[in-house]
């Protein structure tokens, strides 16, 4: 008789395809995963606790470091929460600059995901193409905010910088360029048999699962739920733009791929319209007191980030620091479904499933 037994296998925390410091403890039976336990917290910095001793403006650079791949949306959620509490009216020009920055950042974030997701299967060239085009967005955002990733661009009541001279023209030029590139991306990857074999029908979950696990963003929309806060609960000035919510019905890794690729195109639509509608002049900052104090009370706002719904809860006792701050970090919630998805899968599918969920560990650990 051959005696078999289960084995424990550690994936990570310093494994390149975990996209950060993330550890998975796997119980495996041969090639098949019996149980998977994610271990998180290696990147925990205690942003929420630190924020209790910081003024609202000082919290903004900390939010940059949560989801460092799309920091603009994090910047926005904190200033949006404080503005909601204070009842501030943000100038139109600032709103447009925010939208442009957020959507450009969403495209950059999805491009990074596209490159690394396919890199996980062993294809190196798509990563280089994705980074080539992402670099152009980072250069645009660098010109606007003075940093490539940790922008610290938004302020309570507006934005720090106005658009530099010629910047809008560059953005307008970039949109058709990337549209052309996207066609090439589909040519390069979407029809590739190896890629299809590795993603089709892998990591499938249903609509009910997605809702029960409180997934959001492309992870939710890949199951056919049409839910996008930019459309369903428009914040900022998203109600002025014409764009579609991309959904797929299959709920597998390939569906998530198509949803994200579709979202890049939708974001480009928004960018195009925002450049067209961009007000010729106007303020970029509302009139705000030098030391910002949120009135006593509490507020919760949520927005559509690149990875899902980012929420921000502020409880204030009227001081210049929040009494309690809480972020709903989409990567953390999206990660919850991973043990369920991995059960019964083979180890070679693990990387595809984890990659398709798209987590950023800075956000998971907070």
């Amino acid at each position, binding site marked *: 008789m051959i005696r078999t037994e289960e084995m424990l296998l550690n994936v990570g925390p310093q494994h390149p395809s975990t996209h950060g410091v993330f550890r998975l403890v796997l119980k495996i039976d041969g090639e098949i995963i019996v149980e998977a336990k994610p271990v998180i917290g290696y990147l925990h910095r205690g942003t929420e606790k630190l924020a209790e001793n910081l003024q609202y403006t000082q919290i903004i650079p900390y939010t940059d*470091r949560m989801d460092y791949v799309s920091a603009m949306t994090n910047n926005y959620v904190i200033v949006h929460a404080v503005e909601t509490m204070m009842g501030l009216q943000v100038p139109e020009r600032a709103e447009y600059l925010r939208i442009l920055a957020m959507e450009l950042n969403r495209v950059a974030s999805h491009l990074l995901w596209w490159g690394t997701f396919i890199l996980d299967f062993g294809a190196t060239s798509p990563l280089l193409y994705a980074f*080539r085009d992402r*670099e152009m967005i980072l250069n645009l955002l*660098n010109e606007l905010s003075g*940093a490539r990733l940790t922008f*610290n661009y938004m302020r309570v009541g507006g934005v*720090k910088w106005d658009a530099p001279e010629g910047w809008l023209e560059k953005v307008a030029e970039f949109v058709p360029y990337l549209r052309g590139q996207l066609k090439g991306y589909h040519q*390069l990857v979407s*029809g590739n*048999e190896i890629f299809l074999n590795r993603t089709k029908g892998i990591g499938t979950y249903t609509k009910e699962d997605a809702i029960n696990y409180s997934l959001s963003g492309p992870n939710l929309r890949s199951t056919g739920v049409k839910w996008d806060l930019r459309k369903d609960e428009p914040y900022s000035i998203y109600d002025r733009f014409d764009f579609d919510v991309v959904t797929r019905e299959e709920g597998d890794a390939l569906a998530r791929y198509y949803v994200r690729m579709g979202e890049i195109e939708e974001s480009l639509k928004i960018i195009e319209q925002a450049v067209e509608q961009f007000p010729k002049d106007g303020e970029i900052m509302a009139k705000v007191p030098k030391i910002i104090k949120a009135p006593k009370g509490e507020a919760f706002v949520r927005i559509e980030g690149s990875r899902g719904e980012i929420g921000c809860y502020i409880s204030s006792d009227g001081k210049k620091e929040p009494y309690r701050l809480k972020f709903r970090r989409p990567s953390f919630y999206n990660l919850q479904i991973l043990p369920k998805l991995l059960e019964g899968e083979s180890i070679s599918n693990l990387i595809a499933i984890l990659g398709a969920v798209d987590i950023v560990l800075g956000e998971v650990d907070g």
Partner: protein
Amino acid sequence: MLGWTKGLAYTLKQLTREKLTYDYPNKPIPLPDRFRGIQKFYPEKCIVCNQCANICPTDCINLTGKKHPDPTKKGKIIDTYDINFELCILCDLCTEVCPTEAIIMTNNFELAEYSRDDLFKNLEWLDENDENIRKVNKA
């Protein structure tokens, strides 16, 4: 059936494209004026108002002032000014609050040192850091 050949065709097409990489350490990287690099400090402009030290989210700025040597003049002048670049996250808030623009960002970003002690920059060092200074400091 032969989807991968399409991909190969795309890759071959890219071969003729212009090179995008920089020969970095030999050639400097062009950076926009707003880029946030290591700060430049003007001791003569500083009025010791402490606003930069107060706004700093990581508490990396330490400064002390002394009385003006000219007894007819009011106010203080700067005595010591240190930034600890082990902590500094180059968030730009110190330059944003400075009323006299005594502290300004530069385009210099190369901060790597062999010793942690060397990351502790004092007034003299920050004063001498006067290349690639940001031209427009406030929007």
